[in-house]
């Protein structure tokens, strides 16, 4: 049994890796090495890292187009992730998916999806298959609060409750669906209330303390695994960057951003680690190893080959 100090240090490293990885991605984007859309998770790391720490290898993960974190946590290498952003054949989707479509079958990462809410039924489908086979796997589905207003979300939620599917729905409420704040999207401030109408368990908490996130999600995962009962979790979080790289985020104030940064999950973890006796030296080592990993993945992505023209059609049909 790993002690809690080491567990937290591991989760801290994951969060730092996600942040440094995405900072490097933002830089590469500004250099024109990454194209299309690039949605950064910076600020939200506590959510995915905490939630996925509650899973087993056999469990399934489905997420949105803001998907880098989930892949990195599930075990997709930083090299395969960065190469995907660079559109290289060494990427986790062979350069065919890009930022929004990270897939990793071996790690049961069922992908990042670009149509808001359209992936929520997919996740329920993985849970359906798990129940059909009785293999004990749980599906976890991430989506933003912007998904809470679209039909696919409501239908998947209703069917998962009706059929008692082993799934945990995690609404990453980062306060804005693109530039629209929640109060202009929904008549209620509490997204988790959606669970009530379909007779589903729910939970709601802020993602500042990564261990708390893990423990709260673990309750839902246990409920899914042992009782085939789904849960809707509203995970309160905040993204520091714009919706995507093209968004300067002028719909919110610097004061608001500064306020939210006080709840930063990495800062919080650093404090908690120091309280557990982790030295500055040890933290510096973790950060240095992350920086080396990120530097290496950028170099790898840069030097990797482009996919061959034959890949345009190769994977359209089995």
């Amino acid at each position: 049994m790993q002690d809690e100090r080491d567990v937290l240090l591991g989760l801290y490293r994951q969060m730092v890796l996600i942040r440094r990885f995405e900072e490097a991605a933002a830089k590469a984007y500004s250099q024109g090495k990454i194209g299309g859309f690039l949605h950064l998770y910076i600020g939200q790391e506590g959510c995915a890292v905490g939630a996925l720490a509650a899973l087993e290898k056999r469990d399934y993960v489905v997420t949105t187009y803001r998907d880098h974190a989930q892949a990195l946590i599930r075990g997709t290498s930083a090299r395969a992730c960065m190469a995907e952003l660079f559109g290289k054949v060494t990427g986790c989707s062979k350069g065919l998916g890009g930022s929004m479509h990270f897939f990793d079958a071996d790690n049961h990462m069922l992908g990042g999806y670009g149509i808001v809410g359209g992936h929520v039924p997919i996740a329920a489908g993985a849970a359906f298959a798990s129940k059909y086979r009785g293999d004990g796997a749980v599906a976890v589905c991430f989506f933003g609060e912007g998904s809470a207003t679209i039909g696919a979300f409501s239908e998947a939620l209703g069917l998962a409750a009706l059929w008692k599917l082993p799934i945990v729905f995690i609404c990453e409420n980062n306060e804005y669906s693109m530039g629209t704040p929640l109060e202009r999207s929904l008549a209620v401030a509490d997204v988790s209330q959606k669970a009530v109408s379909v007779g589903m368990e729910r939970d709601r908490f802020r993602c500042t303390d990564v261990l708390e996130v893990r423990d709260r999600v673990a309750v839902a995962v246990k409920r899914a695994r042992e009782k085939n009962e789904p849960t809707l979790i509203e995970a309160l979080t905040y993204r520091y960057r714009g919706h995507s790289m093209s968004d300067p985020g002028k719909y919110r104030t610097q004061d608001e951003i500064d306020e939210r940064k006080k709840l930063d999950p990495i800062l919080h973890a650093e404090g908690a680690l120091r309280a557990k006796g982790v030295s500055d030296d040890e933290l510096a080592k973790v950060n240095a190893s992350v920086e080396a990993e990120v530097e290496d993945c950028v170099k790898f992505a840069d030097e990797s080959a482009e996919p061959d023209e034959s890949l345009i059609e190769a994977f359209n049909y089995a």
Partner: protein
Amino acid sequence: MRVMVESRMRELRYREALREAMAEEMERDERVFIMGEEVGHYQGAYKVTEGLLARFGAKRVIDTPIAEEGFAGIAIGAAMVGLRPIVEFMTWNFSAVAFDQILSNAAKLRQMSGGQFTVPIVFRGPNGAAKQTAAQHSHAMETFYAQIPGIKVVVPATVADAKAFMKAAIRDDNPVLVLEDERLYGTKGEVPDGDHVEPFGVAAVRRAGEDVTLATWGKMLLPCLEAAEQLAKSGGPSCEIVDLRTLRPLDHHTVVESVRKTGRLVVVHEAWPYGGPGAELVDRVQREAFDALDAPVLRCTGRDAAMPYNKKLEDMTIPDAKTVLAAVRAVMAY
């Protein structure tokens, strides 16, 4: 010496052929299940799934609430991780609310995951105009779906094809859309016994002829056959009829071969005239058989209008033997 193995034939109705195909595949593969509105307790809105709930149980014959996007997506997700779902749309009209699941997920997952995930799934149900079901329940939806790479589109016209292609669809590792037809469900035909599976992308010549080729699919085979018979009886031009059977992949080669013999082509389909697989076929034929054509290719299609409820007007909106005859006469007179 060629040994002929005689396969016993049985007469079935189209809906029974579909049901038999699904039941046989469910027997041989535990991963196959059926999901849709009223497929179980109600025995199917059109009785295609009649008796399957009693035979296979509620785990594998699953009644859904009215949530096409939800259950289509759930089936796609289940297929991604190894199951082989059959999704019934009560009619293909209702697939429109699940269109994003088919377009953005089922058709895209293999390509955008770099080949890591396949989606072995069947979407099926009746397509096109039934009888006086009016504007919202009469769409010939194949015209939309045939355009999408990543899926296969099957439009069986005969009872034997209904069974053989349904089995092929269930065994295929790609998303396959089987567009059936309410007006065909009651038709009878011979079906070979045994495990007969048809390959996708091979058209069938339903009637040999010399003067004009009629290329068609689905229930429009019937007015083509009727028009050809009438012409044969009256000493008119002799029609060769090609049933395309699958629209993606689309076997235009059989049509080109036929046109090389007849020099004339009429494409007959129920869907609207604007674009679609009929226009795609015409494009391919003019490129590959330009030198063989003695007349412009004509299309005999559904009218460019929302389907009227009134019976007389509905009949005038869908091609029938009379409109096929008029098109044949037009290409012959050129």
